[in-house]
């Protein structure tokens, strides 16, 4: 279904959007809000994100972004003070937690929603404090009063609970997992997140528009390139700025380098979680080589703050082009050796195969995205489906696998490394000349823009409303983990507790990016 199929009276096409990755914004009423959700769902569209804002004192708006055939449809439903908006979770189950977060941040309730437990507010700030409301400064200080959280109990003979976190056993981000088990078998997993909530969306409102990429780049350290790119893309769309081709290509180079770095780390950790420490040693060595070249070529191991509004901050020196091409050959060859070794280890394959099965049905149900979706046969990749520059020229071959288990998620990672290395070779060999950044004139009237990037986990999305004189009036950042965390709960059902670390790692979802 194409965006134009909806004929909203006030639909506005956002600047600079090319066909295939266009974006439109429409203000609608609450009947249309509900009806459109159903129509999008039936047509196979996806809910990318749901968020809210107080646009002026007492004037609220709830927003939803849908992925359609030719881009993003951003719908805004004006909501009065104290009113709610119609629940979307019966149409898009992944909306449940987003709606709970909207309430915690803004005080807007989804009318008819079944689960209204707090999500980000753990009781550490007052229940009637809503940081995104205009009355709040966002810099208040509160004394900690951790509240109890009503987990869903599972009853029955021999059922007991295992509580894990928020501090996990390894060097891992904070979150709480509540397992209900019989013996070793998991009947139910319930996640509780929000421990890394830093109030980023409120912080954006006191950040100058042209410095917001630094904050976006710290939403999630392992996805810093994708978030800063999505943010800058939104800024450039809102201000109608065209960036130089060389900057587009360098951004893609950074994004693919980020993807490879994370996949290398995950493949090692996946070996380790199945008792194959050798894999961790080998892959962490390769990842370190990769990061060191990032540092030498761009001045940062994880490429933070390299993407800036208007382009990129660092050009690439010709000697590093050669070094990167050489490194691509080396890493590609060594990863292929490692893949053969992984395939040969019967003990490893025994742990991977059939474990943590995520069916295509559950993928569809929760709108699971990114590599986890592709490992369950869902062929969706923003770089392929909505090729934003330079992916309209440097075309991506989609990688997927139909098995839906840990083995499939391992295989997708291997194949995405090969594909990203192929892309990096092309990006380096055919890199256009010219400037790397365009000067941005930000004294435009308030406007809107979206950024939509295929990060290494999946759809990274930013919706931006600019204010007057280079300010941000609202910036919403969305991590693909919002869709994928609920699916993890399903992938675990019926598995044994000791397989949880392995299954969890095979998803490797984001805490910081989700909690914001």
């Amino acid at each position, binding site marked *: 279904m194409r965006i134009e199929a909806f004929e909203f009276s006030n639909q506005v096409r956002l600047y600079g959007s090319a066909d295939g990755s266009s974006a439109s914004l429409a203000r609608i009423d609450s009947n249309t809000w509900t009806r459109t959700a159903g129509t999008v769902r039936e047509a196979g569209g996806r809910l990318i994100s749901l968020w809210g804002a107080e646009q002026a004192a007492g004037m609220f708006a709830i927003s939803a972004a849908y992925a359609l055939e030719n881009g993003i449809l951003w719908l805004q439903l004006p909501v009065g003070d104290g009113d709610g908006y119609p629940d979307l979770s019966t149409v898009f189950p992944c909306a449940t937690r987003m709606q709970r977060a909207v309430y915690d941040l803004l005080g807007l309730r989804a009318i008819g929603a079944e689960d209204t437990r707090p999500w980000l507010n*753990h009781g*550490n*700030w007052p229940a009637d404090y809503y*940081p995104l409301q205009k009355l*709040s400064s*966002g*810099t*208040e200080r*509160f004394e*900690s009063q*951790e509240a109890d959280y009503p987990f869903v109990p599972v009853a029955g003979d021999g059922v007991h609970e295992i509580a894990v976190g*928020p*501090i996990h*056993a390894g*060097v*891992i*981000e*904070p979150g709480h997992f509540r397992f209900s088990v019989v013996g070793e078998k998991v009947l139910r997993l319930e996640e509780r997140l*929000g*421990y*890394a*909530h*830093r*109030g*980023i969306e*409120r*912080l954006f409102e*006191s950040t100058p528009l042209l410095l917001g990429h*630094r*904050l976006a780049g*710290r*939403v*999630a*350290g*392992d996805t*810093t390139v994708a978030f800063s790119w999505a943010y800058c893309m939104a800024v450039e769309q809102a201000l109608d700025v065209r960036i130089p081709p060389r900057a587009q290509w360098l951004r893609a180079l950074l994004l693919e380098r980020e993807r490879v770095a994370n996949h290398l*780390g995950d493949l090692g950790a996946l070996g380790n979680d199945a008792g194959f420490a*050798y894999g961790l*040693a*080998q892959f*962490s*060595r390769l*990842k*370190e080589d990769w*990061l*060191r070249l990032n*540092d030498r070529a761009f001045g940062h*191991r*994880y490429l*933070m703050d390299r993407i800036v509004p208007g382009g990129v901050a660092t050009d690439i020196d010709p000697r590093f082009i050669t070094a990167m091409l050489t490194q691509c050959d080396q890493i590609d060859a060594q990863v292929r*050796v*490692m893949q*053969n*070794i992984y395939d*040969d*280890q019967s003990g490893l394959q025994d742990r991977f195969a059939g474990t943590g099965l995520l069916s295509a049905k559950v993928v569809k149900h929760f709108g699971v995205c990114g590599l986890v979706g592709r490992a369950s046969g869902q062929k969706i990749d923003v770089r392929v489906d909505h090729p934003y520059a330079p992916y309209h020229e440097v075309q991506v071959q989609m990688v997927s696998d139909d098995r839906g288990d840990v083995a499939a998620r391992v295989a997708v990672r291997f194949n995405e490394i090969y594909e990203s290395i192929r892309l990096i070779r092309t990006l380096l060999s055919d890199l256009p000349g010219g400037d790397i950044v365009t000067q941005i004139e930000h004294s435009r009237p308030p406007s809107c823009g979206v950024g939509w990037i295929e990060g290494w986990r999946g759809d990274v999305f930013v919706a931006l409303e600019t204010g007057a004189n280079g300010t941000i009036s609202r910036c919403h950042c969305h991590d693909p983990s919002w869709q994928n965390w609920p699916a993890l709960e399903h992938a675990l059902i019926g598995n044994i507790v000791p397989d949880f670390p392995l299954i969890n790692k095979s998803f490797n979802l*984001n*805490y*910081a990016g989700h*909690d914001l």
Partner: protein
Amino acid sequence: MWQLLKQIAKTGTPTQRLPEGDDAWRTEGQRIQQEVLDVLGRALCIRAIDGGSCNGCELEIHALNNPYYNIEGLGIKFVASPRHADMLLVTGPLTLNMKEAVWRAYEATPHPKLVVALGECACTGGIFKESYAVCGPLSNLLPVDITIPGCPPPPIDILRGILTALRVKHANLPP
């Protein structure tokens, strides 16, 4: 299996092929081990805690465990329980939602209870300092022995910070 062995043989030991800039501390390896022994009488056990970081610092802690840095070879290891730890290595701007967990972990840690604030956020509150949702820097909650700035600090700096914390403790021990 032959492929695995071949790969091991071909890989060699990367710890011996460090770039020049890193040689200084590597040659110190034995002295570092001795210092760890002098202060603690055994391996140094670290409990890493994410106090609401962006995960950047965690990536660098992971990197510290790779064969290039090989910190286990120096007698330093990461442990699962604060009750087994000599040192807490804490990242992030200390979110309100992690404050109690961090405090409980500190309470559970036996002496010498070394505390290292890792990364810009833990040291100063960083870019998140003004937010309603954080209560950092870490020193607002815990007595911090050493701060390691950087966003994120590279593995070498983390190692230096860990060693400095040990040395400070060593200097303060009765003879």
